[in-house]
């Protein structure tokens, strides 16, 4: 290829890398948008970011590439994941649109905007192409540092201020001021006795059931599941697995066998009653 062309193009390896990773990046982005569960979105976004980091490196922005991986993918995405966990990992929000016409409008705008951008880039005069060769002559980091502490020092200072403000702001937003003294355990128990409910600690989950997983409600003597036995968070998320029906059947089978063994006959009412209760 001629030098002229070389000036405009990059190595084949990079091209290959671009096409492969670019596809990955796009897929990642798409799945970020279209995944039901936010955890998956977060993970695919992380993937995209890593790809981007590689592209930075390929474009000679070594420092940024590392920062991208460390700060973004490392810190920020983890922050995301924390929040996701806080809000609920498995909570899958439906992609069903509630606002009329919103989705179509969004797609229309998106596509239109994209087309416009492509058009813009297309007929932009991006003739000169001189790589970051001599810019990175004394090392990329040094170059950046030189710029940051000379040309962009004010912006740099301000971003520092911004970061501090952000940190403080985050604390202010999330911190909840305790208005009254925390109740001691004793007081709590006394209160329980006074109110006369749940004097004993809450029952453990899955006591009468076959399992003892946390998300399975324990069964009451009559076989109905007890909400109390499952932790509040799970209840809020509606992540209670109900096995009462199965448990009842097992129970019935058990009794059946027991009766057969003891040749009892007239216990229909009991069974009957139990079935009543199970309804």
């Amino acid at each position: 290829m001629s030098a002229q062309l070389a000036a405009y193009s990059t190595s084949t390896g990079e091209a290959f890398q671009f096409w492969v990773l670019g596809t990955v990046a796009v897929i990642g982005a798409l799945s970020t948008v279209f995944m039901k569960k936010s955890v998956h979105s977060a993970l695919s976004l992380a993937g995209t970011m890593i790809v981007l980091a590689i592209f930075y490196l390929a474009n000679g922005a070594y420092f940024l590439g590392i920062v991208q991986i460390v700060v973004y993918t490392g810190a920020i995405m983890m922050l995301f994941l924390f929040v996701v966990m806080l809000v609920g990992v498995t909570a899958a929000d439906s992609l069903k649109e509630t606002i009329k016409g919103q989705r179509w409008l969004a797609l229309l705008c998106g596509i239109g905007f994209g087309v416009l951008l492509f058009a813009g880039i297309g007929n932009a005069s991006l003739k000169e192409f001189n790589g970051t060769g001599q810019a990175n002559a004394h090392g990329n980091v040094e170059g950046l540092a030189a710029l940051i502490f000379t040309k962009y020092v004010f912006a740099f200072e301000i971003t520092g201020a911004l970061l501090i403000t952000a940190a403080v702001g985050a604390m202010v937003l999330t911190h909840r001021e305790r208005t009254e003294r925390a109740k001691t355990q004793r007081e709590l128990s006394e209160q329980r006795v006074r109110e006369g409910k749940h004097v004993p600690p809450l029952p453990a989950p899955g006591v009468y059931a076959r399992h003892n997983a946390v998300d399975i409600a324990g069964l009451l003597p009559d076989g109905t599941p007890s909400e109390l036995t499952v932790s509040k968070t799970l209840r809020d998320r509606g992540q209670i697995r109900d096995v009462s029906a199965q448990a009842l059947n097992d129970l019935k089978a058990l009794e059946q066998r027991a009766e057969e063994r003891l040749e009892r006959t007239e216990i229909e009412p009991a069974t009957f009653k139990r079935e009543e209760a199970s309804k």
Partner: protein
Amino acid sequence: MNPVNYLYLSALLFTIGATGVLIRRNAIVVFMCIELMLNACNLAFVTFSRMHGNLDGQIIAFFTMVVAAAEVVVGLAIIVSLFRTRHSASVDDASLMKL
């Protein structure tokens, strides 16, 4: 390969991110999409800096990252407090702007 393709890629990612912002209700995902858009911009900056052969683009990208970090911190804090108050992270629930 012409590095302009990087620009095309960033444009594509940006568009996807923007669309995501518009069609997702979960505030966290919306935030992710915003991050996506920012990253797309960064890619563009970096590419430009490569084209122009100086580091200003990278500086801008750097600042963008910083700002994005700050924004994420605050934003997530907001989401958390929202979730605390109304047990939901859906942006549509916060439709208090209605007349």
